[in-house]
């Protein structure tokens, strides 16, 4: 059941993204920024956790889940450490993903060559 819900919720979030792409016809960077900020807002109001309960990876894998982790990390650390927690909480929570993207990305870019056929 979790697998079905992951597929359906994840798929639906991507459909929303596709509609945004087809409607506004902007660079993908706009969509990525929109998703992260929206995820953080939904995370702040505690709405996104309910979606994660229903959709599991279908809600955590899309970039909205990244925004949700950012907001939740900052809020939890802020409750413990105050201002410094608000500053660092989101960064700490999402550090593995960001570091992985940068480090793996750099290694891949060093090993492989660009594909010139586009």
């Amino acid at each position, binding site marked *: 059941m979790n697998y079905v819900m992951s597929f359906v919720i994840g798929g639906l979030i991507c459909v929303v993204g596709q509609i945004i792409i087809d409607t506004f016809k902007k660079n993908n960077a706009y969509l990525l920024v929109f998703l992260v900020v929206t995820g953080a807002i939904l995370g702040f109001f505690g709405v996104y956790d309910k979606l994660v309960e229903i959709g599991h990876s279908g809600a955590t*894998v899309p970039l*909205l889940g990244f925004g949700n982790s*950012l907001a939740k990390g900052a809020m939890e650390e802020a409750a413990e450490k105050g201002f410094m927690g608000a500053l660092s909480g989101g960064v700490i929570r999402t550090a593995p993903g960001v570091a992985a993207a940068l480090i793996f990305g750099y290694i891949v870019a060093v090993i492989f060559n660009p594909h010139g056929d586009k």
Partner: protein
Amino acid sequence: MKYNKDNYKKVVDELTPKNKILKNCVMAFIFGGAICLLGEIINDSFVAWLSISDDEASPMTSVVLIGMSALFTGLGWYDKLGKIGGAGTVVPITGFANSVVSPALEFKKEGFILGTAANIFKLAGPVLIFGYFSSFIAGLLSMAIK
């Protein structure tokens, strides 16, 4: 309606974009759903094999998906998937990884520091800045409310 030489172009214009958007949405649903399903399978595998909680497995799943996406981008496969899957390959975290690797590869010819390393943030930079900024505001607001 009869199709003749005069209204043919108009009919095509009316029909094409709508069908394309529908098709794009179906492909986005399938590809995005498949990537999230893959994430759930990886997540469950970590929980089962390492006997850890769901909360601990979630970042590990992200790291694995990001690693796979980076490799696929290096091999040139991710862009091919992206042409079919559209937003289905952009919205998941794998799309973020792709947006890190693509400019890094593209600017390789300008050197490993000013080319690859400097341009690795070209698309990821905006995401991280807006993401960190909104998390900071969320943290501050949560303090103010309490």
